[in-house]
């Protein structure tokens, strides 16, 4: 109860607090915009407001989704600080000066100093992105250096008498002449900028070490940073030429928090590599086309001295014609640069196939190759065995649970038939594309592995069945030995004894006594003959001499239950006939002994080059082939002939035993 309570409070806290911070930021920015309106550049006013709100929004989103990740909170807090100190305070300073309100100096001072906490925010962000931990313990001094630099630079900057242009009064009201502000500022800024550079370097180090998800996250951030690093200087240079260029700066400033937010929360949904790819391709193409256009206009304009309409048309034509081939060419170059990993991975797979063909590699190694090339050590390749409808790994072990939530799967098909499945960790679109092309390239190896596995399994099955057949033979011999020793042999011994006794009687007793003993002995002889006949019948079904139909009829006659027999008159291979006969025997025995059937149908018929033997009873059902049982032995006998045995025996629904034996055309 208490636990649920605290959990609810925690949830409230992680949504409420970021929301509150975002709200405060929005309110501050609205105030800032209202205060600044018409007192400074409208564009700047709105741009800074939007960037702070975007940052606060991104921070709030991350903080609410991943309250354990400090990046979200960093963005929230520093966006609010920026809104209050940078924008709202600036607005107050300007408005107060214009309207004669008090607190001009405080507003101006805060706005002047606001870039320092912003910088500290970025130092921490660079160091902690994306997981909230330093890349390693060795980076621990960097935030401290930044903090010390910050502490020194704040008074060094804000209390310096040199700050004059920032204040309407032309004088820093908080200047303290006694402070060595120059020294403080130079030491502080050295540390501060050092920490900023180090934190940027930490991102590079992190990117180089990163793999998988983290790499994708860093790519997002790096893309935004790269854009900012191009856009901000460009803005700076072209500021005076076209004021519209400010838009670049605005997008650059908002892009960074947005990229961070996407990287942390949504990096799997969008493929950064495609965005980078397209940006680079179209950016380059645009630049080159613009240059071509400019050059064409210039050359034509000076050479031909004709009207600008013609020149423009010609330049446009050149650009239009050049567009497609240029784009293809650039795309090609970019592909080779950016998709090097994919290009090489596919090459590696092709090399592996080459090694496979040359006999230097085993097809089962394809799983290891896939693991290595996709950098997923848990990747698993399972192959499909159509005969048993099973998925097994490359060693033939049936694959365990395939419904793994952590992993995704790709079905492998060849000629429209399933041959396997690749289980891999949840991946980006790009990784999936790579994996698919690798699977496509390595399909042959997968198919060969599958055939290997199938062959090994069938071989193992054949070996097992052969062992069972040999055991069944041994068991049969043991039974015969018992029958002979305990049956016929004992009987013969007792007959011999009786004869000896009669002999004794002839010497000592009357002839009648001896005759009676001899009669007993003859009864024993008859029994012995019967026993031997039964024994011989078990060895080989003599009834089969006349064919399957008479043999089946003979079987039916020996059973106390009514048996309906249908069997063809034609003759089959002796092995097939014997198997059919034993199936009939076993089926009838089971039906009478175990299933308590009252009606049995025994049939054999030829169908599509197979002899189909069925024994159907109306008994209790529920029969299963236990190893070592008669049914299991039959199954082996049928399998040895290349046939199949099916038992359909639901409890209470009778038993149907069906054997299909190939018997030629």
């Amino acid at each position, binding site marked *: 109860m208490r636990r649920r309570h605290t959990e609810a409070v925690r949830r409230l806290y992680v949504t409420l607090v970021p929301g509150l911070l975002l709200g405060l930021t929005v309110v501050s920015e609205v105030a800032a915009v209202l205060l600044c309106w018409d007192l400074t550049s409208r564009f700047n006013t709105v741009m800074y407001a939007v960037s702070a709100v975007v940052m606060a929004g991104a921070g709030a989103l991350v903080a609410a989704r991943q309250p354990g990740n400090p990046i979200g909170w960093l963005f929230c807090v520093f966006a609010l600080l920026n809104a209050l100190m940078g924008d709202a305070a600036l607005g107050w300073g300007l408005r107060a000066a214009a309207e004669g309100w008090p607190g001009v100096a405080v507003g101006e001072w805060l706005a002047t100093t606001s870039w320092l906490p912003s910088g500290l925010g970025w130092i921490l962000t660079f160091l902690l992105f994306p997981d909230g931990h330093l890349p390693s313990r060795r980076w621990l001094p960097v935030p401290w250096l930044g903090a010390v630099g910050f502490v020194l630079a704040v008074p060094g900057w804000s209390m310096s008498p040199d700050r004059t242009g920032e204040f309407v009064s032309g004088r820093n009201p908080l200047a303290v002449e006694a402070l060595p502000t120059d020294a403080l500022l130079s030491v502080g800024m050295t540390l501060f900028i050092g920490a900023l550079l180090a934190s940027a370097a930490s991102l590079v180090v992190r990117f180089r070490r990163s793999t998988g998800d983290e790499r994708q996250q860093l790519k997002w951030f790096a893309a935004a940073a790269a854009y900012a690093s191009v856009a901000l200087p460009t803005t700076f240079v072209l500021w005076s030429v076209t004021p519209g260029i400010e838009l670049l700066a605005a997008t650059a400033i908002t892009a960074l928090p947005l990229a961070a937010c996407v990287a942390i929360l949504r990096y799997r949904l969008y493929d950064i590599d495609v965005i980078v790819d397209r940006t680079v391709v179209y950016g380059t193409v645009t630049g080159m086309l613009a240059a071509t256009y400019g050059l064409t206009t210039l050359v034509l304009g000076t050479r031909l001295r004709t009207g600008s309409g013609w020149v423009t048309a010609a330049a446009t034509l050149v650009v239009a014609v050049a567009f497609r081939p240029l784009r293809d060419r650039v795309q090609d170059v970019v592909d080779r640069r950016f998709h090097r990993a994919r290009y090489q991975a596919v090459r590696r797979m092709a090399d592996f196939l080459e090694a496979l063909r040359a006999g230097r590699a085993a097809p089962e190694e394809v799983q290891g190759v896939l693991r290595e090339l996709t950098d997923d050590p848990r990747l698993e390749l399972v192959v499909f065995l159509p005969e048993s409808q099973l998925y097994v790994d490359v060693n033939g072990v049936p694959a365990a649970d395939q419904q793994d939530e952590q992993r995704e799967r790709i079905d492998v098909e060849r000629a429209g038939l399933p041959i396997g499945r690749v289980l891999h960790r949840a991946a980006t679109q790009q990784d999936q594309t790579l994996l698919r092309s690798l699977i496509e390239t390595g399909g042959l190896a997968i198919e060969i592995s599958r055939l290997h596995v199938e062959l090994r399994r069938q071989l193992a099955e054949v070996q097992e069945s052969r062992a069972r057949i040999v055991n069944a033979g041994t068991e049969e011999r043991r039974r015969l*030995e*018992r029958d002979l*020793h*305990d049956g016929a*042999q*004992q*009987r*013969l*011994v*007792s007959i*011999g*004894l*009786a004869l*000896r*006794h009669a002999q*004794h009687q002839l010497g*000592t007793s009357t002839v009648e006594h001896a005759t009676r003993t001899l009669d007993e002995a003859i009864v*024993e002889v008859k029994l012995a003959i019967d026993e031997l006949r039964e024994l011989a019948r078990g060895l080989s079904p003599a009834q089969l001499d006349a064919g399957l139909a008479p043999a089946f009829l003979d079987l039916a006659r020996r059973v106390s239950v009514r048996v309906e027999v249908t069997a063809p008159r034609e003759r089959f291979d002796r092995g097939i006939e014997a198997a059919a006969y034993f199936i009939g025997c076993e089926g009838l025995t089971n039906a009478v002994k175990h299933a308590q059937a009252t009606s049995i149908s025994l049939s054999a018929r030829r169908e599509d080059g197979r002899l189909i033997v069925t024994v159907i009873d109306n008994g209790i059902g529920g029969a299963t082939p236990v190893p070592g049982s008669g049914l299991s032995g039959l199954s082996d006998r049928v399998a040895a002939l290349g046939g199949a045995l099916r038992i359909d025996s639901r409890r209470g629904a009778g038993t149907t035993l069906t054997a299909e034996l190939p018997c030629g055309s």
Partner: protein
Amino acid sequence: MRIVIAEDQVLLRAGLGRLFADGGHDVVASLGDADSLPATVSSTDPDLVVVDIRMPPTFTDEGARAARELKRLHPSLGVLVLSQHIETTHTIDLISLGGFGYLLKDRVLEVDDFLSAAERVARGGSALDPHVVATLLSGRRGDDPLAALTDRERTVLQLMAEGLTNTGIAKRLHLSERTIEAHVRHLFTKLDMPDSEDDHRRVRAVLAHLSATQP
């Protein structure tokens, strides 16, 4: 001689009973299984127990185990195990106890030999089926000391192993006892075995030699 028979097959049991009765012996009890043997032996105090090696419930070696148990309880009791087949592992160590016999069932048709073997066992002697002895003697390597025996000495050794005394051997081979004694002396020297006047110890020595040198 007072005899207890344990044999699960009714006809054979009856036949054995008649055989002993015809030979002038007294069958004091006939049993269908081995379980009640110790109790029956204690109550009837027989001279000889004839037991089938395979009996209910598992039909494997119930008789042999019962025989071992009986010899443990009554060391002087004669126990004759009847078997359908040749088997050497159980028998060799049991026969070294003395007062023990192991015969194939068809031996009973040689009534006189069978009865004398039974009497020998009851007196504390041994009886080992000729087939078992032949198995022990057969399939030997070329360097075996047995190869040095003459055919006659071999026959004498075989009969000794079966448990026969010099007198019995002489009677079987239609030779004089003195001749047999000479053969025995020779073969003991050839096999480097200590001779013994005691029939039982002699059998034991022969069997020990045979089973120890068995290939």
